[in-house]
């Protein structure tokens, strides 16, 4: 059986199905779209959505006027935790492993860090509930 919520089976996801659903980001800032379970990162003016399922964790550091926020992603060749099965649709691909941004707005980066972690926590909880229901 290929139950999508079974551990060991890659669960497909799409942040946005249509271009019209993608927010406009005039300030070129990192955004959290809770409804789409997605973090939006600006890379060279592009709008790059990353689904919460691809996010491993974040870290925040302060140096002088700048706060740096690093988002680490789930990729092959790393351990995520015993409970989680590492399943990849295409392990021979290249993967974005991390992005590091900086800002002079300490407070906003602090909030962002919190929001991304909250999103991750919720999604992990939901996935666990689904697995329980399936058992």
């Amino acid at each position: 059986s290929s139950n999508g919520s079974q551990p060991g089976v890659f669960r497909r996801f799409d942040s946005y199905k249509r271009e019209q659903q993608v927010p406009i980001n005039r300030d070129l800032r990192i955004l959290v779209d809770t409804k789409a379970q997605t973090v939006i990162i600006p890379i060279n003016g592009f709008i790059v959505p990353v689904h919460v399922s691809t996010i491993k964790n974040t870290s925040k550091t302060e140096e002088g006027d700048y706060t740096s926020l690093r988002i680490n992603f789930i990729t092959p060749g790393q351990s995520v935790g015993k409970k989680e099965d590492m399943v990849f649709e295409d392990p021979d691909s290249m993967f974005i492993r991390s992005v590091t941004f900086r800002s002079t707005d300490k407070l906003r980066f602090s909030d962002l860090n919190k929001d991304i972690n909250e999103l991750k926590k919720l999604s992990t909880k939901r996935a666990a509930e689904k697995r329980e229901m399936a058992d």
Partner: protein
Amino acid sequence: MSVDFEKIYHNLDPIPGILRLQQGGLGWKSQNNLVTISAEDISHMQWMRVARNFQLKIGFKSDRHREVFDGLVRDDFERLSKTVKEFYGVSIETREISFKGWNWGKTEYRGEDLSFQVSGRTMFDIPVHKIANSNIASKTEVSLEFIDPTASAQGEPTDSSSSSSRKADELVEMRFYIPNSEKSREIIGEK
């Protein structure tokens, strides 16, 4: 005769201006910057969805770095493509962008850009000249560091470019997982 588009951004400049297309070329003007492009130098144009809505990307015959104009709306496409066809004899190529939210795909060099592709669609391009440093961090990891993003994002220094007016979040580093070391050398080597 000219065709204007308002509230248009040039490259990563935070201040919008007017994009004006005329027979001999095109110009963009904001309160403190001016960019001109001559018709003879235009080699190709592309249209794609980016952060600030839609983008017109212009590549050149000369060794000038490409220029991009953001803030166009979907409905501008018809007027824009008709105008550039008539004025410059150029057909705009539409590029499909990935909004899947995946972090895996492949990279390829496209002209002066390193392009990250997901299932045949573009996720983002990075101009090679903005990569300050690249390293093979381990057998399966490559890191890219970027040139002071503020300096490159804000164009010429002006009174308004003090740190308090820097609104954009600046990308300083990216790391990639690379399944084989041949590919890592290719990414570093071609830079």
